[in-house]
C-alpha cells in the first residue's frame, strides 16, 4: 500500500499510526524503523518479538491503546515463506481517537509460549484461553488458563494444521457401553 520511505525505513501512510509505532520503538530502545512493519488496505501491522512483547503491549496501553479488539492466532505450518509456526495478533484501538493498529508476534514448537496480556487488558482473559484451547499456545502469567470450548479431557488442539478436519479424536471420551454393562 502507500507507504513513504524516510532515512531507509518505511513509514505508515497514517501519521497517527506512525507516531504510535515510532513511540513504541523509542520505548523499546529499538532504532527508528527497527520493528518490521507492513500495511494492507486499512490494516497497519508491526511485528514485535516474543521477548519484547510484554513491555511493548504495556507501553501501547499507556500510550492510549485502551481497547483490545481481538487477540487470536493462526498455525502457519506449511504456509509459504513462513518463518515461525504460530503467528499471534493483537488488534488494538484508541477509543478516543479511533486509531487502530495490529501487533503481530510469533511462537514456535516444541513449547509455544507467550506472555499473557491479562494484567494489561482484562478482555484478553477468554481470548487467550481460546487460543490455548484451539492452538495450544501457552500464555505465561494467565491466572486461569484452562480449555474453554473443548472438553477438559480433550487431547490435541483442533485448529492446528496437523489436526485433521475429521477422524482423529472424535468422541474419544464417550466409552462405548455394552448392554450387559449398563
Amino acid at each position: 500500500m502507500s507507504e513513504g520511505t524516510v532515512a531507509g525505513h518505511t513509514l505508515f501512510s497514517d501519521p497517527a499510526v506512525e507516531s504510535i509505532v515510532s513511540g513504541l520503538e523509542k520505548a523499546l530502545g529499538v532504532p527508528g524503523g527497527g520493528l518490521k512493519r507492513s500495511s494492507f488496505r486499512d490494516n497497519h501491522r508491526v511485528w514485535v518479538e516474543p521477548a519484547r512483547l510484554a513491555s511493548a503491549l504495556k507501553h501501547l496501553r499507556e500510550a492510549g491503546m485502551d481497547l483490545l479488539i481481538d487477540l487470536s492466532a493462526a498455525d502457519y505450518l506449511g504456509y509459504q515463506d513462513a518463518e515461525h509456526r504460530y503467528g499471534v495478533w493483537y488488534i488494538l484501538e484508541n477509543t478516543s481517537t479511533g486509531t487502530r493498529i495490529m501487533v503481530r508476534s510469533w511462537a514456535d514448537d516444541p513449547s509455544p509460549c507467550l506472555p499473557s496480556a491479562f494484567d494489561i487488558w482484562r478482555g484478553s482473559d477468554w481470548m487467550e484461553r481460546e487460543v490455548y484451547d484451539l492452538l495450544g499456545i501457552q500464555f505465561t502469567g494467565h491466572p486461569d488458563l484452562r480449555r474453554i470450548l473443548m472438553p477438559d479431557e480433550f487431547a490435541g488442539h483442533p485448529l492446528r494444521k496437523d489436526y485433521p478436519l475429521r477422524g482423529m479424536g472424535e468422541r474419544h471420551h464417550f466409552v462405548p457401553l455394552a448392554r450387559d454393562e449398563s
Partner: protein
Amino acid sequence: MPLKLADAIAAPDVEERECLWTLNFGPQHPATHTTLRLVLNLDGEVILKATPDIGFLHSGFEKLGEHLDFNQYVTIVDRMNYISPVANEIAWHQTVESLLGIDLTPRCKMIRVIFAELMRIHDHLLCCGAAALDLGAFTAFLYAFNQRELINEINEWASGQRFHPSYTRVGGLQRDVDDAWIGKVRGFMDGFIAAHNDVTKLLNRNRIFLDRCRGVGVLTKEEAINRSATGPVARASGVQRDLRRLRPYLAYDAIDFDVVCAEEGDCLARYLVRMEEMLESWKIIHWAIENLPGGPVNSEIDGRMVLPNQLSVYRSIEGLIHHFELNMTNRKWKPPVEELYTATESPNGELGFHIVSDGGPCAWRVRTRPPSFIHFSLFPHLAEGHAVGDVAAILGSLNIIAAELDR
C-alpha cells in the same frame, strides 16, 4: 511465630467455605435460551462467584472455514448469530471483498444497509422481548415476536429462506430484490413504530421490570473498555463507539443517524439503548428504501470474481466459462497472499473477521471476533454480589447467542 489477627479472622476463599451452596444454572434453563452453563457459588441468595462453562455448542466453524470457499462459508456464518444472520453474512463478505479488492455497486451497498438494519431491529426485538419474558413480562415478548415474523418474511421473499438466508455473495447478492420486496419492507416500516410503542408502554414504566433492571449488573465505562465490550453493551456504559460512524462501511457515510448512548451501564440502560437503536435503524431503512439506487447488484462482471446470472450462463459461452471457473475446485478466486481484519457494527457489537489467505479460494485461517463470546466473559464481573434472580436480568441484557459464543 507472630500471630496475625487479620489472617485468623479473615473470610476463607469462596471454594473453602462449606456453608456455600453450589447451583448449576443450565445448560438447559429457560433463561439461558440456548445451551450455556453457569456454576454459581451462593451464600443464601447472593452470588459470591460465578463460573461460566461454555462449549456445549462448539461445532468447529473456524476449522470448517479453512475447508470451504468464500461463497460456501457464508452458510456457516449464517448459523453463528442466527438471530441476525444477514449481519454476519455482510461482515464475512465485506472482509472477503476487501481482501480481493472488490468495490460493490451502489445498489448492492444500499440493499445490504437495509438488511443490516432490519437485522438490528430483528436482533434487538428478540433481545428486549426475551429479556422482558425472563423477568415475567410475557406480553411485550409477543408484540416483539409479531414484528420479527414480518422480517422473516422479508428474508424469505428476497432469498427463499426465513432463518438462514445466505443472501450475500462475493461482490454482490444472491439475487436482486424486486418491487414486491420493497412493498413488504414499507409495510413492515408502517406498522413497526406502533409495535415499538406498544413494547415501550408495556415495559418502560412497568414497576416490576424497572425494579429488576435498574442498578443491576452495572458496567462502568472504564471496565467496559478494559474488558473489550463493544456495541450496545459498551454504549450503555457511555462508550461512544459505533463502527458505522468510526469507520463507515457500505453506504453509512451518506446516511444521517444518531449513535445512541447511555451513562448508567446497568441492565435498564442496555435495554433502553437497544430500544432507541431500533428507532435509529427505522430512520436509516426509511431513508435507504426511498433512496435505493438502480443498476446492477453484482459488481465487476469482467473481473470474474462474481457469479454470473442464470441467463448469461445458459445463453452465452462466456457466462458458462465464467460460471465454470468460479465453481471448479482447482479454479475460483486468486486472492493476494495477505492477511486482513475488517469489522462491522453488528447488532450485538463489533463483529469482525480476520482472514489469513495463502492465495487459494479457501482461507488459510478464518478468525471470527464474536461479540457474544466477549460479552459473556463479562458475566462474572456483572453478576457477583447480586442475587440469583438477577442472573436472568443480566443474561437477558447481554444477549448471549450460544451458537456465536461457541462457534
